[in-house]
């Protein structure tokens, strides 16, 4: 991926952390944190078969870049890359990768966690959980598709 890597990206392709770690690493960095959100099989006693993610892609990439800008302002010397996968994801697939580098480790942890919290608040991406006996868009949405339980 090297030269073509988009640091704030929404994609249907499987995710790999390595190019994002490389992207944020630089001589001023003493710490790199990588977060990978993975598809968990069991949630509250319910077995997930797979997940489906959907995004408003241009706005989502814009919001990811704004989160990155916010981090570089709050934690000077940081570098950030965030990529979110959409489409159908199987158990253990990576849904999101956040890579942050910083001169010191505390900032690298804090900024990384700040990024995932912001993603969950403002980035227009939606997750549908598909179980054996139904499916549901997550996030308190009131419309129940047929077959859903929620």
């Amino acid at each position: 991926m090297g030269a073509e890597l988009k640091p704030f990206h929404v994609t249907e392709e499987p995710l790999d952390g390595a190019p994002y770690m490389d992207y944020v690493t630089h001589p001023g960095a003493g710490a790199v944190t990588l977060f990978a959100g993975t598809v968990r099989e069991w949630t509250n006693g319910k077995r997930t078969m797979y997940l489906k993610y959907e995004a408003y892609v241009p706005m989502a990439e814009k919001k990811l870049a704004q989160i990155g800008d916010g981090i570089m302002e709050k934690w000077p010397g940081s570098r950030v890359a965030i990529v979110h996968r959409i489409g159908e994801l199987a158990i253990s697939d990576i849904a999101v990768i956040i890579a942050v580098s910083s001169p010191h480790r505390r900032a690298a942890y804090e900024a990384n966690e700040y990024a995932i919290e912001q993603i969950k608040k403002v980035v227009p991406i939606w997750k549908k959980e598909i179980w054996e006996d139904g499916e549901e868009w997550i996030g308190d949405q009131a419309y129940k598709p047929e077959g859903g339980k929620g």
Partner: protein
Amino acid sequence: MIYLHYFAGLKEAAGKAEEELAWESGTASDVLQWVKTSYPQFDFSAVQIAVNEEYVLESEPVHPGDHVAFIPPVSGG
């Protein structure tokens, strides 16, 4: 003309991801009202509105050519 964008449960309720609406002038609130009336089976109480890919208040003016997106509670990550 304005361009409406639907996602997730609202896309399923509307049966489409996008549609066009004849438009001369008004606010985001007016567009929301039209969509609510068109898809009454969807609960819009937690929906946010984005105009041209930025979140706006319902009082925001909407102009011909604008893209208006209805954003149900997000659940990325």
